[in-house]
């Protein structure tokens, strides 16, 4: 049973990940947060909720988000002694050099650029669902 924390503001991408996870039929637990602040609240706990236990096996992190973006979240995470070791994979539509450089410096296990192409065949890795399925399968397989 793998635990995944998805930090993503786009409902569409959240649904895509949920559907893809269902399709690849790997036993998992998916927690979603819509921005960096919410993700930190879930990891560290707040007045209403206790800290997350167990911690996720992997965090799928978007970069462009409101309140606290992916880069800020990653920076805080890496400064937190309890959370700094967590495995993070970036999933974004941004291929900007600056984002790549910052995430590279802070340490991530992968940098995936979501495709914007359109094909009618969902099995192909360059469609949205195909892409998510393909990479989730790899990520989960490599979590041992």
């Amino acid at each position: 049973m793998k635990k995944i924390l998805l930090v993503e503001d786009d409902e569409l991408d959240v649904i895509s990940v949920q559907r893809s996870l269902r399709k690849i039929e790997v036993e998992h637990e998916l927690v979603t947060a819509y921005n960096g602040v919410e993700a930190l609240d879930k990891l560290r706990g707040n007045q209403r909720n206790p800290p997350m236990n167990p911690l996720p096996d992997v965090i799928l992190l978007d970069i462009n988000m409101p309140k606290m973006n992916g880069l800020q979240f990653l920076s805080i995470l890496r400064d937190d002694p309890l959370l700094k070791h967590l495995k993070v994979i970036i999933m974004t539509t941004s291929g900007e050099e600056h984002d790549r450089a910052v995430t590279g410096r802070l340490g991530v296990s992968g940098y995936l650029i979501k495709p914007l192409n359109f094909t009618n065949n969902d099995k192909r890795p360059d469609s949205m669902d195909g892409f998510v399925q393909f990479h989730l399968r790899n990520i989960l397989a490599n979590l041992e």
Partner: protein
Amino acid sequence: MKLATQISLGLFIAISIDLVDSYVNYSLTKKVNTNTDFLTTSEAIIRTSSNLNRSIIDMQNGLRGFLLSGNQRFLVRYESGLKTIPELLKQEKGLIISSALQTARLDSIKAIHNVWLTFANQIIDAKKKAIADPRLNNNYRKLFEEQTNLNTGKNYNEEITALFASFDQYEYDVRAKRRKALTDSIAATDRFSLFFSLLLIVAGSGLSIYLVRKITQRIDSMVKLAEDISAGEFPTVTDDKKDELTSLSLSLNLMSQKLSRNITELERKNDELDQFAYVVSHDLKAPIRGISNAVQWIKEDLPEEMSPSMKKYLGIIPERLKRMADLIDGLLAYARIGRGKYPREIVNVADLIREIADLVVPEGYQLTMKNLPVLSTEKILLEQVFGNLLSNAVKYTPQQGAQIEVSCSEHRNFYEFAVSDNGIGIEQEYHKKIFEMFQTLREKHDEESTGIGLAIVKKIIEGNEGTVRVVSSAGKGTRFLFTWPKN
């Protein structure tokens, strides 16, 4: 200082040197002339003094002959001397008027001669009387002996000879001095002439070299500026000379600055356009992707809940979304042409066509290639042209018996490529229209066809100073011909 002033100043200096040269030459020549005149005069003096001396001697001889022989014939010489000597004295006096010393000598000669004349006249008179009346011979004898005892004739002779000698000697001395002065002044004239000629040459060529170098240096720096500008750099030249070339330098500087500003502005606008293109491709396509996914999910998750017409209408959405995404891509591709610098590489056109055909020409289409060259060019652009033309050919040629041919003919400065098919063809009236944006001859829903492909082809080819044209008629296939530069 203005250049014109400098050039005038240079000419002025050269002319001044020339004038000084002429003046010095003139005065030296005058000196030479003076000396020559003097020598001529001196020769005349000596000549006259010789004549004078000879005349005096002749008179003496005449007197002596007459006294000894009593023959009156001897007196002819004496009498001619009486006439010529005053004349010669007067002449000589005129010649030596500037020398007091010589005038004094001449006066002494004249005085002694006059004394002698008095004596000679007396004795001639006595002798003549003695011949006429022998009684008076004693008178003559007495006078003659008296004078002989006194040595009058001899003294007189010696004195006058000495005077003539010193007179002539003086003249010779002065002449020797003057002759030396003459030689010296001629030599001096030669020397000065040579010196000034050299000075003129040195000063003239020095000034010319200075001015020419000064002008060429300035022009060189401006030429370099122009070269830098054409190489895409925009420096300025420093010029504080304040002459005619300065205004040219300033104009060049202004031009350079203006170009630099304009190009910076152009680069800024290009960056803006790039940013715009990114926003378009990213932010405009993201919602399309969302819609596409949602439709996909509906079809996957709810197949049983949908009525046939729902399914049908839902089926339209992905197609139209795909078309919209293609339009966005096409627009971006069109906007990007000619803005980027593409690397040049050696392109084997046959290989390039094979690569493109792998992507756009399906099985069942027969592709032939004829005389395709290897050339150095911007591969990406040529690839886009062929890519669009080949996919166009495929799009408008039914698969049954489809033949596509790519060929090339070589001209002096360019190649002319042809992409031909045996497809549906294009009617004459559309030949111009097809190169315009969004002109597609198909029904909109028939197949994805944005109508941008040929606009891109035209823009690339014309950006490369080439031309593109189409030869076709309905049902007879289509042949696109375009030129491509050789280098």
